[in-house]
């Protein structure tokens, strides 16, 4: 009997340990799941499940048609959102990294300052966006420019906290004794920073960006709600809902998802290039 | 008195673990066969302190894991009192001590020791009585309500041993338990371990890469050589018991260490 049990187990084991089966499962299962979901959506099973209709939740085919038909207008709004997201992401990450370097050079005051910045991280964007709109009233006479500045500022603030906390960890959580080693070479603070701390922080920068990319897209969308000038994917979602044009709203939601996914994919590719040698 | 007991122990050599033609072959990343261990024949006696000694890659841990039923051998057989390791494991007769203490951070020292008793459905009173006994044995009674983070490495390893002994196993399997500790702590724990062994009469299988540790503790030292992993010699250690730290300074001890060292095949160590 024990022999039988053993053989049964090894057959199961063999199937699941097979590398080809494993990698096929990794790709096929999610695809199958997504495919089923789309079928349920297209055949309106999903609507029954959510107690809604094709007006509020249009069919995928309809959403795709709308995206195709309005591509010019959609691209205009995508541009506005992407500019805000990227500008805020870059500015926030650079400032955040700068803060982290300062904090790493003066750890006594820096680590404490970072605690305060971490607390800022918990401030709702909803509270931040209108304040930024107020602050940028005198930046320009053109509503589109001052709105853009306000939105970029919101995204920047969201990214600063995230980057500075992660980068600080990257700059200070060094391999044991590596700091002592640099010390034994009589290396200056500057040399230790360049040769040891900065390279050590690279993987942490990517950790920060992996969080920052989705949250900067979302911050850009939400800050558009509070902006003066009506432009951007997020704002279009809202405007279309107000006008009860749900299909158009969904088209913008799909586009918003695509922006996030594409930016994330670019980040992952960049990471695999940058961290290739570190394995 | 104790010498008499030792004599009885060595004369009463009933074989407990029978290992025949044991081998383990892994698949490496390229799908090629890699022999981790091959052709091991060994009898382990009841109540014996036996060491598995060798450099990394010699398969000593693999051998221990196969005895513990943590790995299934690809060739040969292991029988423990006529049973296969799986049955013995299900009868809960193994106590295992790993190199890292593997303590559960969220449990106090006492609760860590009681963990195997909980999984074996002992009632609360029994658990407490056993854990108190074990705490006493490893000298940590004062630290019963401390958490692992509050203990030194040596103390954590004591908890680890206490936990392994709490279920009163018949066979204690130790995988390089002291290799992460400093020399002073190690010596203290060597003495304690031998004392516990004398008191409890367990069979101890002790994996190590430290020759003098193996010689000092064991009745027999199994020397394993790498590429492929194999048992190249079994050296009897006829140092008298109880062992004392002073014995390490004797001529005889050094001779035994040399004998073990010379029995490695391939010579390069």
């Amino acid at each position, binding site marked *: 009997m024990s022999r039988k049990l053993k053989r049964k187990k090894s057959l199961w084991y063999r199937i699941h340990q097979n590398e080809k089966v494993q990698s096929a499962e990794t790709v096929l299962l999610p695809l*199958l799941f997504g495919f089923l979901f789309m079928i349920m959506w297209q055949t309106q099973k999903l609507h029954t499940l959510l107690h809604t209709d094709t007006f509020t939740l249009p069919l995928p085919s309809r959403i795709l048609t709308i995206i195709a038909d309005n591509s010019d207008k959609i691209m205009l709004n995508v541009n506005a959102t992407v500019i805000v997201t990227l500008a805020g992401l870059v500015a926030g990450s650079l400032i955040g990294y700068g803060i982290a370097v300062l904090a790493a050079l003066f750890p006594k005051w820096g680590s404490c300052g970072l605690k305060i910045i971490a607390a800022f991280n918990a401030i709702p964007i909803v509270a931040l966006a209108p304040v930024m709109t107020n602050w940028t009233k005198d930046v320009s006479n053109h509503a589109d420019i001052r709105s853009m500045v306000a939105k970029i500022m919101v995204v920047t603030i969201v990214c600063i906290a995230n980057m500075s906390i992660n980068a600080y960890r990257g700059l200070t959580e060094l391999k044991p004794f590596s700091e002592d080693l640099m010390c034994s070479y009589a290396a200056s603070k500057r040399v230790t920073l360049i040769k040891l701390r900065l390279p050590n922080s690279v993987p942490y920068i990517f950790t920060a960006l992996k969080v920052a990319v989705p949250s900067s897209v979302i911050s850009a969308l939400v800050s558009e709600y509070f902006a003066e000038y009506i432009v951007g994917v997020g704002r279009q979602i809202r405007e279309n809902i*107000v006008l009860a044009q749900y299909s158009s709203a969904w088209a913008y939601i799909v586009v918003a998802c695509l922006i996030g996914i594409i930016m994330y994919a670019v980040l992952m590719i960049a990471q695999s290039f940058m961290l290739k040698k570190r394995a | 008195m104790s010498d008499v007991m030792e004599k009885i122990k060595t004369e009463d050599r009933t074989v407990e673990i029978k290992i025949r033609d044991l081998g383990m072959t892994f698949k490496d990343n390229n799908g090629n066969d890699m022999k981790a261990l091959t052709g091991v024949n060994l009898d382990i006696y009841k109540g014996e302190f036996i060491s598995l000694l060798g450099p990394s890659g010699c398969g000593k841990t693999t051998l221990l894991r196969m005895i513990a*039923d943590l790995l299934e051998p690809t060739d040969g057989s292991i029988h423990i009192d006529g049973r296969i390791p799986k049955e013995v494991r299900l009868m809960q007769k193994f106590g295992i001590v790993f190199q890292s203490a593997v303590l559960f951070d969220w449990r106090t020292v006492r609760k860590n020791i009681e963990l195997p008793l909980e999984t074996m459905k002992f009632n609360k009173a029994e658990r407490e009585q056993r854990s108190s006994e074990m705490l006493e044995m490893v000298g940590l009674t004062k630290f019963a309500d401390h958490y692992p983070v509050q203990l030194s490495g040596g103390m954590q390893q004591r908890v680890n041993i206490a936990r392994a002994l709490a279920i009163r196993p018949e066979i204690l399997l130790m995988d390089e338990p002291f290799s992460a500790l400093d020399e002073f702590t190690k010596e203290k724990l060597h003495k304690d371990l031998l004392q516990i062994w004398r008191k409890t009469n367990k069979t101890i299988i002790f994996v190590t890469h430290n020759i003098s540790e193996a010689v000092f503790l064991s009745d027999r030292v199994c020397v394993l050589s790498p590429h492929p992993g194999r048992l190249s010699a079994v050296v009897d250690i006829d140092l008298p018991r109880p062992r004392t730290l002073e014995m390490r300074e004797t001529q005889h001890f050094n001779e035994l260490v040399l004998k073990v060292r010379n029995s490695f095949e391939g010579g390069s160590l």
Partner: protein
Amino acid sequence: MSIRKKITSKPWLPMLIWIIGIILVWEIAATIVSVTKRTPENVLPHLYQIFGQIFSTKAVSSGKTATMLVLDSASKTLFRAAIGFITGTVLGFVLALIMKISKLAEKTIFPYLMLIQMVPILGMAPIILSITGDINTSRIVIAAILTFYPVATNTLAGFNAVEREKYDLMYSYAASKYTIYKKVLIPYSIPYFFTGLKISAPMAITASILVDTLQGDGGLGSMLSQSLKHAMSIYVFWLIVFFSAFIGIFSSYFMGFLEKAVLPHKRKTKIKRKDDAV
């Protein structure tokens, strides 16, 4: 040790100086703004002007003082945020558990768990409102969705971080699968679970406030937009900004506090003891 050294070695001192510094910078900026801008209270009022609102007995809207108004709307918003947060927490934990139990489930769901991060849930707030048709339900739903994925991903990371030796140990005790989950996996994942909660608590609150702004029937977000449009004193706007910032920060700290309450070993500091034998 000199007195000066004694004071500067206190751990709270840098924190205190930072806070004083921030207040100073704010006040200096507010002073500059009050001279240069036409409507300084819109840009940067003095802190005393904002916090003066807390103690002001003057009614700002429908017979309520500013404090009453903020607390009233906060209770509406936060109650829904809390329900959504708890729902999302339970769902997230259960999903992580399912993914740990079944490798197939993990392979199927995990890519979507990553993908859901990219879906602008907050941007979808208006759609969810029109699907559910009820502002309270949509507050709960959105807060739950936002809570759900940090909890699920972090808890799963906790399950997957359990060392192999712990499994080996339980295996040698011939422990059942149920015992392994109960005694090893679930307790081990709790700190990771709390990491998820610390991230998602402020998010749930943000979500709830945002949903408020979509409709005019009370709640912090709705007061925020009303006061912004000068329906009432602009200081109420600032008070709400400060209050929601405080609640957001507090919610995250509260999760940390809960973690320490649940896990006694997290309260113990690591004692660097010399490795001497006892």
